[in-house]
């Protein structure tokens, strides 16, 4: 792992942020829209159930955004190189695939930090919701969600490598497909019985279950977090293996210059 190469890529992705309107929207406007919608739904629910906790939906949508944005940080970085016909240039430098992936991981951290601030501030101003009311629990939440988002990013990138640019819609919608199973806004018990074990095999589902325990029962469900940690490790190993397989597929089949079409 060479620091100068990772730094090179990190700068390369951050150069574009200040002057790219879609990216600024991504960080500041979309999170605000999410907070508005779920905050207002909560206000509406509180009209008939005054004790409905503010954090249940607002906390959920904020954490959901963490996952989604972490995933996008990886996928967009990669997509960016395909769009710009630059992937070949990158891989004729001495860079290794894992260095590239690590750089996208760091881009993700930068994005999440900015989006986290944007979400935290807007939900505080608009609905007087303090994200830090989760206190210490925020740390395991954020780490687990972020890692899971990154894993989804690796899987989406694997799809791009295997099927090229034409699969970008799938690669980007991928995380949203999983959303019902992740049980972001409702407990796993609301899902059909036979789907529940599948849902619980997803690391983020465990964390959202844990989050609801914290909010509704003020208990920290250690087992959810241990499960989430173990599942994240398993998912990560699988995702990284799939990604390397797909990269080898590209090298084997001479697809690196052909990902564009």
């Amino acid at each position: 792992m060479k620091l100068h190469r990772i730094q090179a890529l990190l700068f390369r992705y951050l150069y574009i942020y200040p002057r790219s309107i879609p990216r600024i929207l991504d960080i500041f406007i979309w999170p605000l829209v999410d907070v508005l919608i779920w905050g207002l739904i909560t206000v509406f629910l509180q009209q008939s159930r005054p004790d409905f906790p503010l954090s249940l939906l607002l906390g959920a949508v904020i954490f959901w955004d963490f996952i989604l944005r972490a995933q996008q940080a990886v996928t967009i970085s990669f997509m960016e190189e395909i769009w710009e016909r630059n992937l070949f240039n990158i891989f004729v430098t001495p860079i290794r695939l894992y260095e590239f992936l690590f750089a996208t991981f760091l881009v993700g951290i930068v994005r999440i930090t900015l989006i986290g601030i944007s979400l935290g501030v807007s939900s505080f101003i608009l609905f007087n919701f303090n994200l830090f009311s989760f206190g210490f629990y925020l740390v395991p939440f954020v780490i687990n969600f972020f890692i899971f988002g990154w894993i989804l990013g690796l899987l989406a990138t694997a799809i791009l490598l295997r099927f090229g640019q034409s699969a970008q819609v799938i690669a980007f919608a991928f995380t949203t497909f999983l959303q019902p199973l992740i049980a972001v806004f409702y407990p796993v018990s609301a899902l059909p019985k036979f789907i529940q074990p599948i849902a619980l095999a997803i690391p983020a589902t465990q964390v959202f279950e844990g989050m609801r325990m914290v909010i509704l029962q003020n208990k920290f469900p250690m087992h959810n977090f241990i499960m989430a940690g173990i599942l994240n490790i398993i998912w990560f190993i699988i995702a990284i293996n799939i990604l390397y397989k797909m990269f080898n597929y590209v090298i084997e089949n001479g697809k690196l210059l052909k990902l564009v079409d």
Partner: protein
Amino acid sequence: MLSLLEVKNLTKTFGTFTAVDNISFSLSEGEILGFIGPNGAGKTTTIQMLLGLIKPTSGSVFIFGKDMAKYRNEVLSEVNFSSAYVSLPGNLKVWENLYTFARLYGVKKYKERVSELVEFFEIGSLFNKMYGSLSSGQATRVNLAKALLNKPKLLFLDEPTASLDPDIADRTRKFLKQIQIEQGIAILYTTHNMMEVEELCNRAIFINEGKIITQGTPNKLIKKYGLQDLNEVFIKIARDI
């Protein structure tokens, strides 16, 4: 003379189709080798194999005496590549692009190196422009600057002058000639412009349907076929098979 590149029995099949068929050749220090042949002959596939971005079906590639299958990343720090079919990110400025690649190659004192190249290729006025806004001639010069950032000993150029007007193409060749003379860089060069090969290349290899048909200095090839110029040689070879 020291051989920088040794290619032995290199073959690539995609399914049942053989794109590159058992080719062997070498490239010496300071030599510009024209790698020419009709569309679909297998030039780009070969170059990608040499750079380790397509896995050969069989055969070997040694660069600086090192097996690319084993020492790829080490070798790549002293090699570079440019082509009209890849581009640098259009949403980065020229300097951002050059700094990024200099850092990727781990160039020491990279700002100085970039300044040298900017001066050499006369792209100072483009330094602050977005790469995406450049004309193809301007972009080509920036691409070449990128390709020289790490002072490569071996340079792969796949149709670098495609889409350039004759004037800019001529200036680009002068740059390349100067680099070869001053820095002794070896270049593997593909083009469809035979005049360019006569002017620039010390030696040329003709390939067609993945196989090497003939090779030699441009003059020898013209004599061998008893023709006027390399263009006629190209047409004869392309049609006779």
